[in-house]
């Protein structure tokens, strides 16, 4: 009678492994926190993972695809395909609550929900809401540059997208 061997991996195990794959630009976030994993398909020993890009030109996407493959390879599974899905387009609303907390602790103001029309961005250092936008475009495509008017520290805001 066949018993469960290392040659069989469950979808749940893969989800757990993906929790360990981080965004190379914002290393406190896993790709699950980011909300870019669309689905996992297992047929016999073939594993297909579909992810969605955050921004069209985000250079991290190639690195993330490679990191996913490496992570699963480490566990002895060789037949892995990572495919990219464009539609529906990624939105920061798919970021998890725990992801948003991690971002804030890391010093990056987390994105608002897209239906939240307020324009207040809270300073991740001193929590003041007296902040101003310096530039719509920050150090990476996904961030804008802000400054706190109270503690005077500049900080990144993960743009609502």
């Amino acid at each position, binding site marked *: 009678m066949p018993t469960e061997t290392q040659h069989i991996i469950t979808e749940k195990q893969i989800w757990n492994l993906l929790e360990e794959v981080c965004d190379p630009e914002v290393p406190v976030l896993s790709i699950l926190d980011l909300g870019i994993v669309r689905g996992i398909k297992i047929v016999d020993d073939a594993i297909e993972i579909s992810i969605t890009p955050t921004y069209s*030109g985000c250079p991290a996407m190639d690195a993330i695809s490679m990191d996913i493959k490496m992570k699963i390879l480490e566990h002895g599974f060789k037949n892995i395909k990572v495919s990219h899905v*464009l*539609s529906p387009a*990624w939105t920061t609303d798919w970021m998890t609550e725990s992801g948003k907390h991690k971002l804030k602790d890391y010093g990056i103001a987390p994105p608002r929900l897209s239906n939240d029309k307020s324009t207040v961005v809270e300073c991740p250092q001193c929590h003041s809401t007296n902040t101003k936008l*310096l530039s*719509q*475009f920050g150090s990476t495509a996904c961030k804008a540059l802000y400054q706190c008017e109270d503690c005077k520290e500049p900080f990144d805001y993960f743009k609502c997208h």
Partner: protein
Amino acid sequence: MSKTLIDFILQLADTNFILAQRNSEWCAHGPILEQDIAITNISLDLLGQARNFYQYSANIINTHKESGTSEIPRVSEDSLAYLRTERDFKNLLICELPNEDWAQTILRQFLYSIFQFGLYEQLQKSIDAPLAAIAEKSIKETTYHVKWSSEWVIRLGDGTEESHARMERALQNLWPYTGEFFIPADYEKGLIDVVALKKNWIEKVYAVLMEATLQKPAESVYMHRGGKEGAHTENLGFMLAEMQYLQRTYPGATW
């Protein structure tokens, strides 16, 4: 294989690719650090969009090749970008014009982004699912480009005497290249209705120009055309020479 569909996708790819290259020339030369970062971020968005279009057209071409009915060699996003000649490129002429100064760079981004926004709005409803998906993804990025470039047009137009004069000059230079947006190429027919985009574009552009205290140009000036059909200004050859040098000299080089 639909030749018209491939030409249309390549036109979208080339236009984004060439403008990405022009904007990237500002990298480390921007007027201030934040704006250097902004223009190169926009460049990256456009390059990403170009890659999506090149990949899609390469897919169609290769699928057709595998069915064995054509002599077209296998292609990739790289070969489409690096190994096609000037006459094969279908980008809008406005994208290949030199950056000149910050005013011209900003104004071009503005005129093009407003157009691109309307184009993606229409393309999102395309019956061609991959094109609709790329448009749906890209329009979110274009929304930022429109906002950023509009703010700068207003700031420079309604700024100092010097910045106003530079914006006026840029407007004179660039305006005759905007007519091409709305003249359909043969291969665009049935895939996109560019004529329908004009009214909205004019309204949005004029509103920002007015706020920027810039005189709105006459619609009747002579308009250059030909980019969509591969007839380019002398600028494109120099750009391609620089962009394609490595792959032409060392075919297949990787690093």
